[in-house]
């Protein structure tokens, strides 16, 4: 009898240790379609690789919905373990003093963590000016130029020689229009591509204090003669329908995919989508630049989102999160994510691995984007963008750009008012977070 009960007791002990419920870690994200599928696949792989933690991905809607849900959850003291926040929310997350910085998390939990394995232009966006990583880059992209090779052929242009400088670009656009297309070119994300990336690519400041990296007292300074000239050219071309406006955010995509314009600016994150929808041969090229600007081209900056960890979690939870972040950074997982979603790999090893697998031979587009990011070591003007109330500032830029195109305001006055209104938002953010 004694022996039996002892055996049962022993069995129970074994059972509890073997079947102890893993610690659940909620991971709130805003990925849809194929991207969401791969979030789940990666979580499943992690969960299968160990038994202590269980990453549980939860789709929370758009980027804005996800961030707002995170804010509400934090205020109600039920924040998720990991939350994906888009690049616009970076300054808000940093200033709010509600986070556990990633470099600290890795240090406290004793995870092996070498910031040098990451691609500097990507991690710098989410690091302090001292290089301490605050959030883990997750889905990163950068803006590139897409062009319709069939349309190039029809217009008598060399499809393997996309324009390199802006003056060449505008000439090609006029030729495409003259060849019978609806228009020459279009662009998405006016602020991100034509102001923020444009400035970084020309090594010009978008704002003072290293685009906000060095303090809250930053000011927007992009109302320069260079950008004025750039916008005035586009405005003039819009009158002749060489440039066609397709809407805010990424709403101009149909102009390109339906073959109405021959060249288009969009994130490299849209590459897979274009491969599915475009019924023509298209290519990816670097952003054009003005050759008279010294130092151009510099490097482009990223967009997308990163993973943030809130404060106030238990030690065990932090250990699990740190382990998951290490897992996410392995070359195999990064290569899987990169090759299937079109987002950029965050480590150099993952890039090399993808290259050795021959992925870029069939998909040259993503490599153009990576090379553009790695073109030069980032400067103060090309590390990234960090402004408070940035959603509002981008909205003002969108609105004013529409007023410029509608002829309601001149390019110069438009740029000045973007800067003026943007700065008043920056001052309010500074006042609140001092």
């Amino acid at each position, binding site marked *: 009898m004694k022996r039996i009960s002892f055996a049962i007791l022993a069995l129970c002990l074994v059972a509890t240790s073997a079947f102890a419920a893993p610690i659940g870690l909620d991971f709130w994200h805003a990925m849809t379609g194929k991207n969401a599928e791969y979030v789940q696949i990666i979580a499943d792989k992690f969960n299968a690789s160990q038994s202590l933690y269980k990453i549980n991905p939860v789709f929370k809607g758009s980027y*804005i919905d996800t961030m*707002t849900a995170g*804010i509400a959850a*934090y*205020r109600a003291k039920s924040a998720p373990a990991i939350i994906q926040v888009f690049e616009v929310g970076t300054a*808000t997350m940093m*200033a*709010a*003093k*509600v986070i556990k910085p990633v470099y600290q998390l890795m240090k406290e939990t004793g995870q092996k963590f070498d910031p040098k394995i990451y691609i500097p232009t990507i991690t710098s966006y989410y690091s302090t000016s001292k290089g301490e990583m605050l959030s883990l880059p997750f889905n990163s992209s950068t803006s590139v130029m897409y062009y319709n090779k069939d349309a190039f052929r029809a217009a008598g242009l060399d499809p393997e020689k996309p324009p390199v400088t802006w003056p060449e670009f505008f000439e090609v656009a006029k030729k495409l229009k003259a060849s019978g297309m609806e228009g020459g070119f279009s662009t998405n994300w006016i602020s991100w591509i034509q102001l923020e990336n444009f400035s970084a690519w020309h090594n010009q400041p978008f704002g003072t204090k290293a685009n906000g990296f060095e303090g809250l007292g930053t000011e927007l300074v992009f109302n320069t003669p260079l950008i004025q000239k750039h916008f005035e050219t586009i405005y003039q071309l819009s009158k002749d329908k060489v440039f*066609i*406006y*397709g*809407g*805010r955010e990424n709403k101009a995509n*149909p*102009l390109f995919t*339906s073959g*109405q314009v021959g060249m288009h600016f969009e994130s490299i994150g849209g590459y897979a989508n274009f491969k599915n929808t475009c019924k023509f041969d298209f290519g990816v090229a670097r952003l054009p630049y003005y050759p008279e600007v010294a130092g151009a081209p510099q490097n482009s900056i990223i967009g997308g989102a990163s993973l943030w960890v809130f404060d106030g979690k238990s030690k065990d939870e932090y250990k699990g999160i740190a382990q998951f972040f290490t897992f996410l950074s392995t070359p195999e997982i990064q290569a899987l994510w990169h090759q299937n979603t079109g987002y950029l790999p965050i480590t150099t090893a993952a890039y090399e691995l993808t290259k050795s697998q021959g992925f870029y031979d069939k998909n040259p587009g993503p490599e153009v984007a990576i090379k553009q990011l790695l073109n030069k070591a980032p400067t103060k003007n090309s590390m990234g963008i960090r402004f408070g*109330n940035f*959603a*509002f500032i981008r*909205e*003002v830029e*969108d*609105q*004013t750009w*529409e*007023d410029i*195109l*509608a002829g*309601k305001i001149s390019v110069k006055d438009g740029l000045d*008012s973007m800067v*003026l*209104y943007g700065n*008043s*938002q920056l001052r*309010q953010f500074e*006042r*609140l*977070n001092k």
Partner: protein
Amino acid sequence: MTQQYEFRAKGLPYLLVLPQMVVVFVFFFWPSLQGVWQSFFLQDPFGGHLIFVGLENYTRLFTDPSYAYGESFRVSVAFAGAVAVLSMVVALFLATQANKKIHFSSFYKTMMIWPYAVATMIAGVLWLFMFNPNVGVLAWVMKHKLGIEWNHLLNSNQAFLLITIAASWKQISYNFVFFLAGLQSVPNDLVEAAAIDGAGPTRRFWAIIFPLLSPTTFYLLVMNLVYGFFETFPIVHQVTAGGPGQATSILVYKVWRDGYVNLDLGGSSAQSVILMIMVISLTVIQFRFIERRVHY
């Protein structure tokens, strides 16, 4: 004479309305009060920093040109008015036609009511697809067949027209039902008497039917204004997102945009307090004046 009953226990009626009052308090009064409270503060979205700023959130709305609040106010009034007039005129016309003795009238009536069952968000998407300057069917027809350059992405008048039509389309069904019911309750003998006296159809409509419809018309006017002001958010959100510039940024869209997207909780609360005052005023006007003056 109606018979009146009285509860013997004085506390019982209060006990019976208590559950309803709790619901009203928790879901209406409490959030409203919080909105009023927040409108006096600057705060970061996570609630960490809180600075009392008095009425600054309100003055900022009217003095900072980047908010363009006065402009948003003007657009909202014009929009609500246009939606109310357009949807009521069309609905009244359709109701008078459907009220005639025609074949398949019940089929027409059913079809007329259908759009009301379409969610406002979907209605917005439908109209957007037809009028999208790049891929929309109607935009294509206008450009290539009629020679009209349709681009509501940059032309603010066209954008305004588009959201007005989209918002009215849905509301016509609602108005139609009420007008039809109103028309059916107009006594036939009055209309016939007028006909015998020699009044033509137009005269009969304006002299007899329209005045007798006035309770319905006034009720619908208030309902349509409320709809135009406060319930058209999904249409603006889907179709124009407030653009071009801020040309269609109506008050309810702005309050959402500033609070939810731009995370300016103080400014957004101030705007919602202003909206609250507007709703209260509209309700008072409806109960105090219109319900008393209009003859039923």
